């Protein structure tokens, strides 16, 4: 991949996120649903959040909260509006909650901040994106690849025929679905050294309400397998995938997704395909300590 193509890709993703960042700044008082922001970025919701977190160095939720706090600081300084009112406008229901968050961010209470001159109303962030009062945001610094040893490979997967069980609900309960699913397949002699265990997360636990998260537990099966009862059959699309191996507990997968989609991808010269990412589990949590778990994260790429 030549340098120019990589530059074009970085610009492509930056422009997409810039549309979103501008929209957020202009609609700070409104709900900012993921679907809408993803649409603005022309990315599917399940990819959007990771690209955002990786490129900006903070999650969407943190970003919005930070901008609201910066705006509050700005208003404290330049207006006479009562603190309670400013707290309310920043999305806090109580003065106490606002004060706590404000002190954490600026090291001063809102009242102290208002009295003191020369304190910046900005919270330091590598992306350089701050609350803009009337000016339009024009650019931001995309996060660099912080882990130089990050090893991403491109793999061409063949389409996979998988049996699956859909889990709808909190992500921390997908284990129950796996227990049920592996029991049903295992008693029929469909488990062993060959079948692969794959997870498809259609939603992001960081931004989707827990009871609405959809996750498919998948196991590869042969041509003779037929869907039955709770167990469905689907075909996972083949083609190129960017693969990053995540070592360690499943709780920390989010960080690896953000590195792959938000740091590696924009600088790779490649673009995402609008199908979900895959998690291929290479060992079993049943007989492996969480820190020794190995998961290959697969992000689908355009050819």
């Amino acid at each position, binding site marked *: 991949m030549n340098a120019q193509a990589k530059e074009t890709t970085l610009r492509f993703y930056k422009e997409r996120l810039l549309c979103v960042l501008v929209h957020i700044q202009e609609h700070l008082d409104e709900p900012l649903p993921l679907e809408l922001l993803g649409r603005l970025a022309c990315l599917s919701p399940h990819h959007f959040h990771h690209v955002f977190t990786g490129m900006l160095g903070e999650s969407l939720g943190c970003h919005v909260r930070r901008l609201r706090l910066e705006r509050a600081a700005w208003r404290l300084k330049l207006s006479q509006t009562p603190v309670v009112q400013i707290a309310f406008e920043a999305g806090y229901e109580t003065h106490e909650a606002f004060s706590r968050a404000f002190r954490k961010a600026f090291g001063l209470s809102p009242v102290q901040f208002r009295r003191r001159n020369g304190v910046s109303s900005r919270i330091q962030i590598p992306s350089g994106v701050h609350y803009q009062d009337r000016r339009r945001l024009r650019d931001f610094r995309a996060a660099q690849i912080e882990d130089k040893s990050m090893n991403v490979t491109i793999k061409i997967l063949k389409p996979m025929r998988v049996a699956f069980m859909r889990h709808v609900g909190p992500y921390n309960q997908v284990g129950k679905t796996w227990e049920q699913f592996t029991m049903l*397949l295992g*008693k029929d002699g469909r*488990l062993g050294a060959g079948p692969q265990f794959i997870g498809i997360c259609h939603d992001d636990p960081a931004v989707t309400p827990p009871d609405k998260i959809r996750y498919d537990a998948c196991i590869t099966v042969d041509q003779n397998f037929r869907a039955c009862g709770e167990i469905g059959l689907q075909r996972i699309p083949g083609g190129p995938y960017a693969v990053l191996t995540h070592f360690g507990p499943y709780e920390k997968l989010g960080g690896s997704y953000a590195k792959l989609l938000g740091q590696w991808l924009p600088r790779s010269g490649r673009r995402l395909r609008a199908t979900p990412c895959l998690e291929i589990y290479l*060992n079993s949590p049943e*007989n492996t300590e969480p820190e020794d778990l190995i998961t290959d994260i697969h992000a689908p790429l355009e050819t």
Partner: protein
Amino acid sequence: MKSQENTQTQTSITTMTTKLDLYKLHKAEYLAPREPVLVRTKPAQYLAIAGQGAPGGPRFTACIGALYGAAFTIKMTRKFAGKGDYAVCKLEGQWFFDGQPDTTSKEAWKWELMIRTPDFISQNDLKTAVATLLKRGKSREIEEVTLETIAEGVCVQMLHVGPYEKECETIALMRTFAQANGLKLSGPHHEIYLSDPRRVPPDRLKTILRQPTVKQKS
């Protein structure tokens, strides 16, 4: 996929159920320090399959497939019948060498691959699982899987970190240690594979080496 933000409210997939884990139950038999130690092992039941050939070769791979097929089918059949659950243990292997292994002809190496299995698993459980797997069209190796009890008694044991080829250095330490304790290494060399060689780089592979012993004649 999990977010870092939600970790307080979310637990891992790993902690969903507490099930019988033989390695934890018999913790004292799985000590793995970086120095040799003596462990006293009780007779233990294993699913096992014996063979000959180079590690990683076609026969070896087919035997691993058969062994895991049997292990999972037995476990899940019992679980489905409401007879309780347990964790399938790690892969283990015994290696049968006369003296030093001949690294120039790995095809001649003889081994037995094993998975430790709870005592309540019966020959009948194995028979049922084999029938299920044959019905699924699994390869004939599945019929070679046996359920057997292995008694190793007092063993010298330690953790080997690094490629399998360098085990001889660790074994030399174990031999010296045995001698210092009035023992002699005997019986087949036993390995418990804690890491997956397909994914973990050779220098980080962790393997418990176990060597049964006999009293040294004075």
